[in-house]
């Protein structure tokens, strides 16, 4: 594998670690299987790209991508908790609607950032325009987001959100508003995904309406790999796992692509990702079959994706 492919894989890994953090927030902490992600990722990209092309400061344009993602998350949340649409369907509806909205935002299927200033530009003069400049900037951003999320989850509001996702009956007995927690959590989750989309567009130089396909599955794969590597319950380690899982995942994909393992090509990426997630879910089921119901990393995922047996 060339150094160019390696730095590209690490850049993509760092960007998808933000998606993994978002997925961790919705799937794990809120217990909300949120599919908005496939729409909020290109939404963040589209908002940032259109902002930049129209002369907006790239940092403000990135913030716009975050805000747009957060609003998309709020829409899914409102559909679910205020209007009573089932959580899975609420996410799908927002995702589908966002496809049209992204086309409207960009006015075409894609927006090129070729030659435009991006968040990476100032650092090219600061660190020098090397192969690793983008990766260093992205690493700092990913780490900052992880630390911010860790901090939030230790606050009164963050702790209430974790309790609400795990045990809503107990949460309301402690005067926690479960609906509000879903809204807050979905906004934060998709805000992080919007950030990932905004950075991805600036990293590859283009925002494309179809770039979101498979984002959710990649985020899940990254989170699951992270959980397998760091078998920790503590939030700070779970978020480290999201970062490490995403980077490892993109690294393995890059290796498989460059070595031509099983003849895998770039277009097979989503198939491979889906298989990884399916195998992980099935493996967790096999591991827990018949065993005492211990709460470990994958039990939540299992209960989200596998039919419940009546008791």
């Amino acid at each position, binding site marked *: 594998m060339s150094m160019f492919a390696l730095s590209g894989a690490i850049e993509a890994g760092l960007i998808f670690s933000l998606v993994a953090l978002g997925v961790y927030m919705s799937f794990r902490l809120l217990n909300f299987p949120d599919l908005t992600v496939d729409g909020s990722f290109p939404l963040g990209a589209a908002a940032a790209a259109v902002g930049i092309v129209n002369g907006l400061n790239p940092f403000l344009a990135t913030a716009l991508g975050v805000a747009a993602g957060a609003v998309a998350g709020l829409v899914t949340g409102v559909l679910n908790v205020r209007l009573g649409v089932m959580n899975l369907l609420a996410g799908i509806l927002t995702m589908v609607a966002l496809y049209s909205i992204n086309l409207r935002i960009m006015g075409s299927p894609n927006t090129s950032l070729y030659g435009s200033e991006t968040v990476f530009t100032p650092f090219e003069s600061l660190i020098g325009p090397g192969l690793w400049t983008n990766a260093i900037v992205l690493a700092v951003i990913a780490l900052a987001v992880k630390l911010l999320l860790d901090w939030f989850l230790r606050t009164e509001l963050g*702790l*209430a959100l*974790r309790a609400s996702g*795990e045990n809503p009956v107990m949460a309301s007995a402690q005067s926690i508003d479960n609906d509000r927690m879903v809204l807050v959590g979905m906004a934060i989750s998709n805000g992080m995904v919007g950030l990932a989309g905004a950075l991805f567009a600036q990293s590859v130089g283009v925002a494309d309406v179809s770039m979101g396909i498979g984002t959710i599955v990649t985020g899940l794969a990254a989170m699951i790999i992270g959980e397998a590597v760091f078998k920790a319950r503590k939030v700070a380690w779970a978020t480290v796992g999201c970062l490490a899982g995403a980077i490892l995942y993109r690294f393995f994909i890059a290796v498989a692509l460059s070595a031509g393992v099983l003849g895998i090509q770039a277009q097979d990426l989503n198939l491979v990702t889906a298989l990884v997630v399916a195998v992980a879910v099935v493996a967790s089921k096999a591991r827990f079959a018949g065993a005492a119901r211990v709460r470990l990393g994958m039990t939540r995922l299992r209960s989200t994706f596998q039919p419940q047996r009546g008791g």
Partner: protein
Amino acid sequence: MLSVRGVHVTFNPGTALAVEALRGVDLDVPAGQFVTVIGTNGAGKSTLLSMVAGDVRPDRGRVAVDGKDLTLLPARARAGVIGRVFQDPRIGTCASLSVEENLALAASRGRRRNLRNALGGSRRRAFLAEQLERLGLGLQDRITSPVGTLSGGQRQAVSLLMATLLPMKVLILDEHTAALDPGAAAQVLALSAEINKEQALTTLMVTHSMRQALDYGDRTIMMTAGRIALDVAGEERRRYEVGTLMELFKRNTGEPVEDDQLVLS
């Protein structure tokens, strides 16, 4: 003072599955009184508690605490004045959160949660450790352990502490010792009685055991078919034996006690 007036509750109204769970319940409980509630399955005891806690909204009637009408408030909005301990120890606590994090959740009950560190400074931590010490279970040494690693009895004791951590008015105990082994059950019951006395809490406790119903508290009510069939306190109650209750039960319902659990344990 808890006041329940003319409460009717129907589940699945207007369908073939309609069940009248409560058919006109009136109950006044003076501040600090400990009431035990018994009755067969389906008599409405848990519905009564859920209605007071706010999980079930009555079709008719009112519920008030200290003159403040709570009838239309959801459970979370009542949590500032009403504390609950559930039958299943897993429901009252959060398994993946540590003991101190669970207590911190309870310490913020009834007010808006903000972006301050939930565990707070050393003062809050010291307060939480001191509260744990009151339980006498040595849990202050396991303050950072996930609650999921505690035994059922310990979790229920933590639930009880969480329910009563902040000043509140009414404590609801819904068969909170039914899932525990006899030793742990006795410990949690003694703790409940102690907290009721210490904090002068108005307490409603549903139990499946007639023995417990007479041994604990100041007053016993028996529910039958959604109504209060017996309400006994004071001198008269002290003379009661389990046999007396069973006799009254038979007279009220016209049938003998079939539920073994009511008699045994």
